[in-house]
């Protein structure tokens, strides 16, 4: 049974192998530099959670897309060096078969990096820290005591 696959590990939809390749792809989309990148932020965790939820319709695209990227690489994508990875993704971007999948991953990676941590990505609000936005979720000019009456 698919659900009993030994390599499933801690993921809801992806296999360990798929997650590893996808993680490398996402890290190229949002690489670490002076600020952490997609891998540190948990972008794959975001994508995996949504694939088991709101993004179920994309399951097939991910299963086939990651396999296709690895086929194009001739081995596992994450085993390529950084320059090779970038070259391969640039090729995928222009490839009629692969481009739709790559576009999907770009969109989802951005969501996982810049969206709310509640969905599994953007660990510790890392992208907001990068953009130097105050982290407190709701910062106001004033604080109100809502229990006190206000004048009409």
């Amino acid at each position: 049974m698919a659900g009993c696959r030994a390599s499933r590990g801690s993921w809801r939809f992806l296999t360990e192998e798929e997650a590893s390749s996808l993680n490398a792809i996402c890290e190229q989309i949002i690489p670490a530099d002076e600020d952490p990148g997609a891998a540190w932020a948990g972008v794959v965790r975001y994508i995996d959670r949504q694939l088991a939820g709101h993004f179920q319709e994309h399951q097939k695209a991910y299963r086939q897309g990651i396999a296709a990227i690895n086929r194009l690489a001739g081995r596992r994508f994450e085993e390529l060096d950084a320059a090779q990875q970038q070259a391969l993704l640039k090729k995928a971007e222009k490839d009629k078969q692969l481009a739709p999948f790559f576009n999907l991953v770009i969109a989802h990676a951005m969501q996982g990096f810049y969206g709310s941590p509640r969905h599994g990505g953007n660990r510790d609000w890392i992208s907001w820290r990068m953009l130097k936005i105050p982290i407190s979720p709701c910062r106001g000019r004033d604080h109100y005591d809502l229990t006190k009456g206000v004048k009409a």
Partner: protein
Amino acid sequence: MSLKKVDAVVVGAGAGGGIVAKELATNGLSVVLLERGKWHTPADCRKDDLRNQRTTILGNNTGPEDEGNPRVLVDQQGRERIVLPSQGGYNNNAACVGGGTATYGAMAWRFHPKDFRMRSEYGAPEGSTLEDWPISYDDLEPYYEKAEWEIGVSGDDSTNPFKGPRKKPLPMPPLPPTREETILRAAALRMGLHPFHIPMLRNSVPYGGRPPCMRCRWCVGFLCEVNAKCGTQNTVIPVALATRLCELRTQCMVKEILLDSRGRATGVAYFDQSGRLQEQPADLVVVSGAATESARLLLNSKHRLFPNGLGNRYDWVGRNLQGHTYTGAIGYFEQETYDDLGPGAGIAICDFNHGNPGLRGGAMLANEFIRLPIQFLNFLPPGTPRWGKAHKDAMRKYYKHTIAVQGPTQEMPVWESRVQLDPKVKDRWGIPVLRMSGYRHPHTLEIGNAMAEKAAAWLKEAGAVEVWLKRAGQGLSGGQHQAGTCRMGNDPKTSVVNKYCQVHDVDNVFVVDGSVHVTNGGFNPVLTIMANAYRASEYIVKTWKGTKFRS
């Protein structure tokens, strides 16, 4: 089984329906207010930037749910596909108590006097059903004022020379200006333009028993954490309920308007919270489901006398769907423009709503609401690499250094832009869903692109060192500003309702929402929906006599 008969049943507890329910109940009519969504409170305010009314990547915080609420979208090539509420193209409006007013940006515009006589002013371009309203700005003025004071509006338009005359100022002062406003105001004045503080349905000081805005960044798209945003759910609907003459039933989906043998309405049939079909008898039915769903309900209410749907004898129901064509520009500034103050939008000009040579109308231009990072992805300049370190660099460079100016171009209505019933697809209750098709008039795009240039010029004068345009989009328009599908008019052959929002063919059915807008102004439409709701309600109350209207 039939429930206890009431004077009026109101379908939809949004901007229009909430006001009608309150006006009828406070004037002694018994009312049942049916709402397909839930009643959220500020305690439900989830700061979820991927799931809200503005950004629906993971769904919509105020409904409807994706499950069981499909629509069919037909593109210009005739290809059709199923669309869900969280997907673009659905043209969703919120489904909850308060409707769009629970989560809106809350701009409180009065339309320009010329917006009510667009055909007389400009003539209809070929391929457009551009027409005058049967009422004028002056007819609506007292009701605009009532909406401003009852629901609550802050702002200051005293320095806007283009506005229609107003008898009373706004009840609340504007919020203190943001950094963006200060920069844009100085530039507008240098250009000889007339900037002013946007009227907003948002408390700037305590009002209506609720506190003022605390200026957080979770505004448009979200329920307000401190209840400072003024919607029908925290103003008129509680007043309606306090009369004990109005009963609100949530999660109730209306199937059809029931009609007797002579074609008069006798109430509505609806599915209640547990999916049971109920019949609510009433002497009067008010439809306030917004332009898409109101048209759907009329079309689904068939009768021997109205085989194509109630009010649809001349095929006008569902036609002329319009929204707004938003265009504008984004500027990059060397100085930091971000000051983390919500709601963000605060300054506007009406210099270009009318009087543009060769153009039929135009748009109000305003600075954009505060942008969360996920939203800002769509604000990067064209040509920015889509991925890699260069994309990340761009986010770091631009995020706190941009100002966006945009406006809602008044659209030229198009007969072929429409909603109708899909012959096959049904919703979770088995009710036929909407099939949407159409396009924007080429002149609408022309006006929109001209407005983008105006916005760009303003930003350049303000000191932007890079400026890029947001041009007009193609395809069917509607969205949260949806309007036009049950046009108001004096001639029953070319409109659906009369100037009191009363269906020509069936005198005890009213449509009170954006559906009745003949044209949709170069402004956010909600205050006009509210004003019309007060006006229609006054007519109902004045002419209602027992179970019938005085002729």
